[in-house]
């Protein structure tokens, strides 16, 4: 029995040692986006005309990449709505970028939750690829000069406070 445990633990440690560098390298890749110019895009909006990111310069922009099948995304939405309503008048705009190829499930969720911020439809994954979205949800905060300042990957309870701090800081600039 002891021999069995030894072999088992050995195989497991080898496995973990080999895979750990991979997961770490994925983390490193994403922090390179901070400080670079936010890639421009034009997407259809649920509130009328198309929206072009470059035209929002002068405002602090938050892009929240979400999907209807993502549980943390659904939890985060009402909290993002609060952020949007609170700071809209101070030069802040929040866009919910729906990454699904078929937006109908997303539209249903928006209706059920009753959120008021504009939703952009990234059905061809143009924006998702441009921003190297590697986690769901991903919340990117862009300053008034169009430079990416924060990339928040995933959502955990309490993260909305972190977003508020980031937005307030950039609004004051």
């Amino acid at each position, binding site marked *: 029995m002891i021999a069995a445990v030894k072999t088992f633990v050995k*195989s497991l440690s080898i496995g973990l040692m080999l895979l750990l560098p991979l997961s770490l390298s994925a983390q490193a890749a994403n922090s390179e986006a901070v400080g670079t110019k936010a890639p421009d895009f034009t997407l259809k909006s649920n509130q009328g005309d198309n929206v072009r990111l470059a035209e929002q310069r002068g405002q602090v922009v938050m892009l929240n990449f979400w999907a209807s099948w993502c549980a*943390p995304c659904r939890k985060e939405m009402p909290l993002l709505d609060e952020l949007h309503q609170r700071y809209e008048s101070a030069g802040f705009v929040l866009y919910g970028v729906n990454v699904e190829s078929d937006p109908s499930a997303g539209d249903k969720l928006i209706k059920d939750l009753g959120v008021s911020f504009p939703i952009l439809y990234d059905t061809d994954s143009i924006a998702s690829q441009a921003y190297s979205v*590697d986690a769901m949800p991903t919340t990117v905060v862009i300053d008034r000069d169009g430079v990416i300042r924060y990339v928040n990957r995933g959502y955990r309870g309490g993260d909305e406070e972190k977003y508020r701090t980031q937005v307030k800081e950039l609004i004051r600039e």
Partner: protein
Amino acid sequence: MNTAPLARVGLALLALSVCACTPWVKPYEREHLADQVMSFDRDPIATGYLNHVYEAREASRGAEGGSGGGCGCN
């Protein structure tokens, strides 16, 4: 204990680590994977009971569970 199969699992992991490719399914492409029909164990209480029936009536046991897939969130 027969260790050859575990060694094979170890080799599979080695192969995966040597591969220099980036993840080929992006998190925003995981719509199908998040669907309930793609879950190995959507109702643990039901799967657990059926595995219990198999183990009670048959001599073999083990290797029924597993996890992974899903939405890939957070």
